[in-house]
């Protein structure tokens, strides 16, 4: 008993005060990309060629955050002259076309479905479907339940059955072998329901694009309400998205 108490004191109080207080992430973290529209055409082309995800739209000088895995290749090559990644982790969008960006994002709160705020703003129960990713997105969703983030204090929980949930959170590029299970889970959620796509794989196929075994974009199968980019999205990106969209 004494040992338990000693540990309790040593561990202290760890829950963050986000969103009341801002959290600044370390400079090496790569969040919202900023594009310099005046970069030389040659530099833009070099970045586009080196991008492992073909995420750079050369003509319009935009970056597709759905494809992007935030590896920083373009920033390194252009030495920040074309793309530089900020530490802004609030990068989620409500419409797929908004993933294509020059660094200015339209407000997620304004684009969220307003009746969802009324329905789910105080209590949101989510069923997670892991559909063939690498388990990093799942891991950083799970982290939201740990004391630092403490997702439950916002009335948001991950639940064990689609029957108990208000929507699904999908991760992974939806393999052929998971498609049926995903669609059945979706069907089992009562209406009205929310669909949240988490991570580059779910948004566009991510690193696996081109494989016949996967689906390049959850939106080709289901109506997606919230797109959360990243590989994997930082837990704060997930938290920011949930709070901004539903609160």
């Amino acid at each position, binding site marked *: 008993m004494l*040992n*338990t108490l*000693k*540990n*309790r004191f*040593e*561990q202290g109080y*760890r829950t963050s005060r986000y969103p009341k207080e801002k959290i600044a992430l*370390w400079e*090496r*973290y*790569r969040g919202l990309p900023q594009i310099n529209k005046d970069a030389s055409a040659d530099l833009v082309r070099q970045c586009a060629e*080196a*991008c*492992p*995800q073909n995420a750079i739209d050369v003509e319009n000088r935009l970056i597709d955050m759905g494809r992007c*895995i*935030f*590896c*920083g*290749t373009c920033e390194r090559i252009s030495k920040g002259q074309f793309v530089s990644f900020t530490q802004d982790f609030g990068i989620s969008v409500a419409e797929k076309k908004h993933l294509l960006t020059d660094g200015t994002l339209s407000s997620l709160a304004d684009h969220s479905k307003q009746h969802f705020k009324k329905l789910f703003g105080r209590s949101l129960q989510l069923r*997670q*479907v*892991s*559909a*063939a*990713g*690498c*388990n*990093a997105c*799942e*891991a*950083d969703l*799970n*982290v939201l339940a*740990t*004391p*630092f983030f403490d997702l439950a204090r916002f009335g948001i929980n991950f639940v*064990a059955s689609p029957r108990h949930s208000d929507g699904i959170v999908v991760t*992974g*590029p939806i*393999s052929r*072998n*998971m*498609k*049926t*299970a995903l669609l059945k*889970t979706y069907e089992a959620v009562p209406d009205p329901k929310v669909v949240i796509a988490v991570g580059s*794989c779910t948004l566009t196929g*991510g*690193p*696996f694009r*081109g*494989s*016949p*075994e*996967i689906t390049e974009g959850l939106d080709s199968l289901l109506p997606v309400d919230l797109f959360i980019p990243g*590989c*994997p999205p930082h*837990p704060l990106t997930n938290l920011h998205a949930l709070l901004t969209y539903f609160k």
Partner: protein
Amino acid sequence: MKTDFLEISNGGAISRNQIPHLSFNAFHEEALNIVGNGGKVVHYFAYSDDGSVKLLAVLRTDTLLVAGCDAPEAYPSLSNQCEPFHMFEREMAEQFGIRPEGHPWLKMVRYHPNCRNVPDVFGNNYQEDIPGNYDYYTVEGEEIHEVAVGPVHAGVIEPGHFRFNCIGERVLNLEIQLGYQHRGIETLLTQVDAKRLPVLAESIAGDTTVGHSLCMAQAMEALSSTRPDAGARIIRTIDLELERIQNHVGDLGALSGDVAFLPPANYCGRMRGDFLNMALLLCGNRFSKGFIRPGGVLFSMDNEVRNILTERIVEIKPQVKHVIELLFSTSSVRSRFEGCGAVSNSDAEKLGLVGPAGRACGIPYDVRRCFPTEHYSNLDIPENAEPTGDVYARAKVRADEVMQSIDLIQSMLTDSVETNCVGSGNASPAASSFVVTVNEAWRGEVSHCVLTDAQSNILRYKIKDPSFHNWNGLSMSLRDTEIPDFPLNNKSYNLSYCGFDL
């Protein structure tokens, strides 16, 4: 022992001409001989070369051995006489449609058509997109019942199907059918541009990003005759140890949660996050994605980063130590851990268990000691082995490794580390070459095998996650336990679904 197999080194590329090409019978006999005498299977796979199919085996004794042969359409199963081959023969049957006659339990591994368009060995119709659509192992009797779980599980975890054959609460057999996460990675790796290779390696299993990235980086370095500088090797070693701590700490917390002792469950969850944030400190990503590339690393560890990392580790080390002490000194935890899900040493040998799962059964094999890569030959890696093979042993091995890894990292942080960061890390591999790389990731032996063709393209990329060996260990653990002990056993292994499904 004299053998027709060729001795090779970990991460040493050779010309494919040097690989002994035996007759199938000689290959078969020699492989059985080596593995029958205590050797282990690292790889055993098929590949197409100039229209013909060939087999290749990488075995390990106290050294790594390789040999190949032409693949027959059907052949007498090696698993029949020697269990460690059994998963590999099933995989080969699925990928290439080669039938191992008399295999004790021939069923699909990942549920996908073979790459040669030959008749399916399992008689599956792949238009039906459910891997679980097959006759599971059944037990009959009046009081027998089955429990089917998955692919979608109750938690935030990966998909897989578990079928329990039970009598009352007692589990007679647990059958595990995976494949739901199959993404076709091995095929994709032979088709994509070089710039995508490291990204795919990072996505094989996100919790083993460092382990798989190192295997790929070392393979590409060997094939292109480059070598990372000493600083990069230290940074990569630190990163691999960090990954070990992240996962072990998280799982110790989950184990505590599964026996309803909540303080360590919460503390470990938070501390795991702190260790993930140390990876973010190094490279900007909590899972070390975008860090390791052929030739070195993309981020240096300047003194500012080194000092912050050192301070954070000094601060968290006593907390980790005390929580582990709390966990293992709590009698209610001990009584649930001890004796639960025991696997005998001889079963573990036959199943070829690796990593902490093997060490918990008294098999001390650790790649870091036996085939050291990176900075490991300069480090003193303790030999871990627990005799009991139960949840307690698996938890104990992992707890010990956490504290050892913290010490290892601290020992590497004492002096400043200099490295020249690599650019793109795109390597051009040598033609007609072969390399195998092996590393001790947190789950155990992870290995990649690369064959190139005459044009220097990747002809075959074979990946083996330690989970490929260890899932059968979980199955064995469940025998004669209760269903309520499943989560506990499952967490004590915490195997990779995606690393297995590829």
